[in-house]
């Protein structure tokens, strides 16, 4: 596909998602209280979008990923929360 064709196919969808992201950040910042590790990782991931890098999706995923290598002693929950808690440290 040419760049024009990609834009024709996906621009409106991406525009909509970008506005949703902006509205989400506004909503978070209107609310009382502090950010947590998820929002910290989210803001770091947002920075990846404006970098000159052909693997932005990969870099965003890496910002949310557990960077450690060893198995944890025991699973205390089944669920994932979307960002690595230690990233707030």
């Amino acid at each position, binding site marked *: 596909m040419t760049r024009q*064709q990609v834009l024709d*196919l996906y621009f409106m969808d991406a525009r909509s998602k970008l506005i949703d992201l902006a509205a989400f950040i506004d909503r978070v910042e209107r609310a009382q209280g502090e950010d947590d590790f998820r929002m910290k990782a989210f803001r770091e991931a947002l920075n990846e979008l404006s970098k000159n890098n052909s693997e932005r999706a990969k870099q965003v995923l890496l910002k949310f990923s557990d960077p450690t290598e060893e198995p*944890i002693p025991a699973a205390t929950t*089944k669920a*994932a929360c979307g960002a690595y808690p230690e990233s707030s440290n």
Partner: protein
Amino acid sequence: MRYIEPHAHMVSRVTDDYVKMTMAGCAAICEPAFWAGFDRSSADGFYDYFCQLTDHEPKRAAKFGLPHFSWLCINPKESEDVKLAEEVIALIPKFLDRPNVLGIGEIGLNKNSRNEMRVLEMHVDLAAKHNQLILVHTPHLEDKLKGTRLILDVIQNDKRIKSERVIIDHVEEHTVKLVLDTGMWAGMTLYPESKCSPPRAIDMVEVYGNERIWMNCACDWGVSDPLAVPKTALEMKKRGHSVEAIDKLIYQNPLKFLSQCPKFKI
């Protein structure tokens, strides 16, 4: 259009889904064992589930003209209890000769714990001893990258396992190359909210090629779409992919991998 749905949890779906999938061109469904959304209280619960996967569900699918195949294991979400896992794994060999069983899956990791690792190694050993194909679940969200690396290490350390007989499912942009570089297959799961959207899946195919890759809907009791594969095929068509390229990804590729099990005939 024809396609194979290589990963769908049909025990959680209604008969209307079978109708829709058949009408969309589905030629076969493969159902890995998975977490019911709650922990089963004993190995007996798994015995009944394995009977459901190997006896009842194939009959239900057959009413809609669909061949149904299954994979057996105790899933990673219930692997923290090693004693239960040992009891469940001991049940599996008596089911392996059933006509619709393709292999061991979906095994893997959830929170990347030591016990999950131990149970994963037990499953890999079971697959090796019985010469079974392996289907692997990789963890969710922040746990995926680390879990994928740990899983690949476990499988590569067992020299009895041939890479081309293993599919690592739920890959995303940060794990797909890790998997393909090992010679194993990569599965892309098309979910409305997590894992991989259809446009992202096609992006990965365009970047990394269409060899040793399949797409699946992994529909279950959660937010999921049993028609995600044919919808992604339509997305490929919009991008100008040829009919042959689409057929390779959604039919020929899963056919090639699954046909390594002689029981997979459609």
